[in-house]
């Protein structure tokens, strides 16, 4: 029997500045997030996760995979790379069009997908980024959350994509850990209120994760 899926897309910055402790913290945080989600019954039954990284190229680490089958691999950062967030959005759109199921009389649709983006800088491919923004909006995500991680991240570009922007003061492990815990809580929350008319609500973030107004 087919099941209603909650697609969750996560886009991770693997540009040169993420090398070392930041990407290590992301790996640890993502692993913890997946583990935490596996303890939530609604997430375990419905969440399908996909991870895309972006540096000089956008790469699909794994496509939409049922949470219980996810094995999170070690994400690495190439030697030095720009931040091609535009390319990441372009890849995301292709994936969403390929994989997210729209409801029809014959087939039940997925819940509205969730999108989380983490970057520690600003888009190097700004023109492509701006072209992709309306495309992302047209895909009707239940929630788009952007995270400006660390002092060099530029919130204003992320604000062009979504109103829900959070910022992290640093890219250290404690901070990332709190961020991914909050993402996990947001996904679980999203899956349980997934029938809602306006699922824009998210659980309150921890102190390390500041909401940018």
């Amino acid at each position, binding site marked *: 029997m*087919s099941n209603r899926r909650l697609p969750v897309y996560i886009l991770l910055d693997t540009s040169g500045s993420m090398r070392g402790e930041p990407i290590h913290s992301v790996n640890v945080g993502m692993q913890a997030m997946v583990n935490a989600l596996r303890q939530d019954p609604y997430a375990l039954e419905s969440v399908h996760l996909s991870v895309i990284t972006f540096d000089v190229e956008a790469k699909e680490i794994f496509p939409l995979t049922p949470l219980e089958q996810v094995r999170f691999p070690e994400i690495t950062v190439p030697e030095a790379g720009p931040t091609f967030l535009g390319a990441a959005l372009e890849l995301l759109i292709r994936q969403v069009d390929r994989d997210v199921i729209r409801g029809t009389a014959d087939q039940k649709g997925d819940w509205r997908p969730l999108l989380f983006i983490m970057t520690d800088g600003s888009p190097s491919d700004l023109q492509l980024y701006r072209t992709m923004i309306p495309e992302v909006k047209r895909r009707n995500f239940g929630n788009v959350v952007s995270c400006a991680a660390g002092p060099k991240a530029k919130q204003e570009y992320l604000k062009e994509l979504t109103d829900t922007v959070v910022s992290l003061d640093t890219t250290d492990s404690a901070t990332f850990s709190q961020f991914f815990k909050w993402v996990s809580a947001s996904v679980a929350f999203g899956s349980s209120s997934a029938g809602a008319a306006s699922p824009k609500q998210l659980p309150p973030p921890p102190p390390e994760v500041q909401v940018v107004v």
Partner: protein
Amino acid sequence: MVNPTAPASPGPEKAPRVPQATDPAPVVLCPGAIPVGHSPGTPPPVKVSFVIEKNAKVGEAYRSGIQASGSRVEILGVAVPDELGVAYDPVSGQLQGTPAIHGDYVLTVGYRLIEADPGRPPALEAECTLIVNPDPRKLWQENPSDRNDPDWKADVDMKYLQGADGRRLVASSKRGRSHAHVGSFRDDDFFLDTASGWNILAVADGAGSAKNSRRGSQIVTRRAGDSLKLAVGDERGRKFAEAAARWAAEPSSSPHAVHLTVYDILGAAAFDAMKAVEDEAKAKENPVKEYATTLILGVHKKLPCGHLVAAYWVGDGAIALYRRGLDIELLGVPDSGEFAGQTRFLDRAMVSSGDEIMKRLCFSVVPDFTALVLMTDGISDPKFETDRNLADLGRWDTFWGEIEPLLRDDTPGDRLLDWLDFWSQGNHDDRTIAVLW
């Protein structure tokens, strides 16, 4: 031979080493030249890593291969914690068993490199992780809702009564697992009654994100139900019955006259329900949309010409007239969107225009019927899945096969409440069913 020269100024702490005759000739390299005569040294040790192909789940039979990368290897054995219930089978080269506990387990893989140098130690070890998922069924918690909340509503409700025309009415409603898990309320509600020879049913599903939708569904079902009771008892009920009888005698004639009488009963009830919500919202100083809810109404009367049934429908869920072995008639069209959970809710715009109300009204006259069934999407989603299936007689026959035995019981309401606990992965909404049979 180079003679040592004494350092001209404070130099190295030690005197330079005296060159010997047996030293190799110093090599002078030009760019592009390849050094000769150097020993290649020992190559770095091969790094082999192992990945278990599939994750496991508690209580489920498990079988998975182990992928090695980095070099070709022969797996000699895998150390698995005893209590896990999984073991490595060297014949198949797979891990198999039925895991008894969930968690992440570090397994030690004993292996040797296929191209191992005979001089090197044959058996090596590496670690890999086996992920055993918990069983989601066991993760669901049951937490009580807040008894002190001013709009507290019972998690469970049921009603069973003898109706008109020798038929019976039953309704059962239960809080879904997703609400039980977080200790929130049942947002569904229903109304069931009989009056003046008519049977009256209603179900409603409060919107998940609307704060007071449990109150919304309660208000609309009660108000619409009371309104219907009054209407069928006075001349509106009489006019409806007469118009329907006239139309049934000549089915090729326009049903418009009948629709007008349905409008006065069911359309008016929907209107009254909306007004009642608005009054409550105003009294409590809350936005009306916090009470958002779906609403399905149904009425029935036995006439000399047959059975008369009429409905009003907004939202998801279903109301259907089921005739076993003959057909299934959906008394309206479910509101759905591209994505799961998207539907319409009762709102002012919907009841402000005659056309808008008419669109959601429907009536039917049949010689006989098995059952009139109303349900919220907590039941239609798991049991029917798609709008197409909702219109499929075969699916209804299966559905009837499931609930009919429960209806034959002395306490069908209680049996249905038990049945509402059925498991369906991913479907944990509040569940409400109302049946006239």
